[in-house]
């Protein structure tokens, strides 16, 4: 992948929505800029969920080529591009592990592993825009502020692709406890992320 610094092309100065608009013109440079900006996020999310580097690569290819072929699948009025992209990635990855689980037992990370993988804010990707790095710091701070048992369940659900009942079984906790922890954790998360979520609605 060609490494392009911010001053090297005007595309890096364009926001995601503007780059997506240019895909309607089959503008490969705009696509390259989006790929450079988000491939590590899509790859890491896929890898975290499917835990198989080759499969994660296949998913990155599939997701980006889907964007290239059908830019109209993203509707700007429904929210920001990055939110849409992470949802598409996560859902696609979870579908993949669920279909694999039906075929053979696939091990998701243990709760301890999921917990360990919460990174420090210093581990950042230089390709991310300053805005995205800020968002990342905000989300990390919000998640770190949750009680560990709530954070663990949110991560098991989101990255592990487990249902509430499956989480209850795995953690040997009553289903009611799991449900309450998800609700409380997400309420706190939403409160901590209010500025971000309000920005989304503009």
């Amino acid at each position, binding site marked *: 992948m060609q490494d392009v610094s911010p001053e090297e092309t005007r595309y890096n100065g364009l926001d995601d929505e503007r780059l997506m608009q240019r895909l309607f013109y089959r503008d490969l440079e705009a696509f390259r800029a989006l*790929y450079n900006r988000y491939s590590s996020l899509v790859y890491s999310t896929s890898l975290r969920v499917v835990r198989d580097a080759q499969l994660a690569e296949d998913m990155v290819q599939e997701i980006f080529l889907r964007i290239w072929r059908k830019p109209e699948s993203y509707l700007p009025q429904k929210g920001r591009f990055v939110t849409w992209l992470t949802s598409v990635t996560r859902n696609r990855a979870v579908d993949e592990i669920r279909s694999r689980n039906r075929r053979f037992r696939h091990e998701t990370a243990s709760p301890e592993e999921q917990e360990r993988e919460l990174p420090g804010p210093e581990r950042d990707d230089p390709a991310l825009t300053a805005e995205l790095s800020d968002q990342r710091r905000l989300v990390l701070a919000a998640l770190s502020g949750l009680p560990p048992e709530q954070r663990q369940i949110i991560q098991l659900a989101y990255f592990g692709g487990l249902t509430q009942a499956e989480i209850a079984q795995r953690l040997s906790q009553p289903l009611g406890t799991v449900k309450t922890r998800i609700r409380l954790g997400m309420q706190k998360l939403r409160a901590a992320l209010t500025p971000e979520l309000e920005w989304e609605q503009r």
Partner: protein
Amino acid sequence: MECQEVLELLDAYALGAADKAEADGLERHVADCIRCWDELNKAQRAAALVALSMPLSEAPERLGRKVMAEAQREKAPARVGGGVLGLRRLLRLRWPAAAGALGLAGLAALAFAAFLQVEMNDLRDEKGDLARQVEAAGHQLNDQQQILAVISASDTKQAPMIAVSSESSAWGVYNWSPGSGKGFIVCHDLPPLEQGEVYQAWISTEERPLSAGTFVASNGSCQYPMDLSSVRKRPKGIGVSREPEGGSASPTEKWVLFASFENN
């Protein structure tokens, strides 16, 4: 499912942790309840941000090359699931079993359902096409607005764009506003492109030229907006070259047109 039940479930649903029966019930409810739909949207946006807490690993470099090569290879957007496919699938999967069970009225109803299916798929395709056209029109409008802004700026400058090859009759003008850094190329009599070629605009600097995107000319003429506001080094000029579709990292051939800033 009632509102209270939905509100208690929507965080789990947004995280993808609701089981199928719960998810079905919630989806049926929010289809008719704007308040719960709104709450669900908020929960889904918060859940999507959880992905940003990931430790990031860089995707392998060869993957980037593969994805870009594949994108470059594909010219037209692929269309998925046309009306005919929908009809075939309906006939293949549902017709034999249903025919045995239903009388003539049932068959007529099924035929009508098949017809509706085809219509629905066609409408869906048309909706996609229209959305594409609206987006493209919106983008053209933005370009035109930028061109108008440059023309009407108080500090507008012009530099002639000259064909580098003596055999070429191409000519043009680069118009720009030094204040905003924005400008646009107007060009005429560009040589026709071969199959799989595009024109690429460049900002020439002290170091190497910076790509400013690709375009195709209509009957040899173009109007192409440029933005030099993020270029920190002083540009030496604006160039246009012929490149393979998708553009190149640096110009492969000599300039088709070039405007020098030396005298500005």
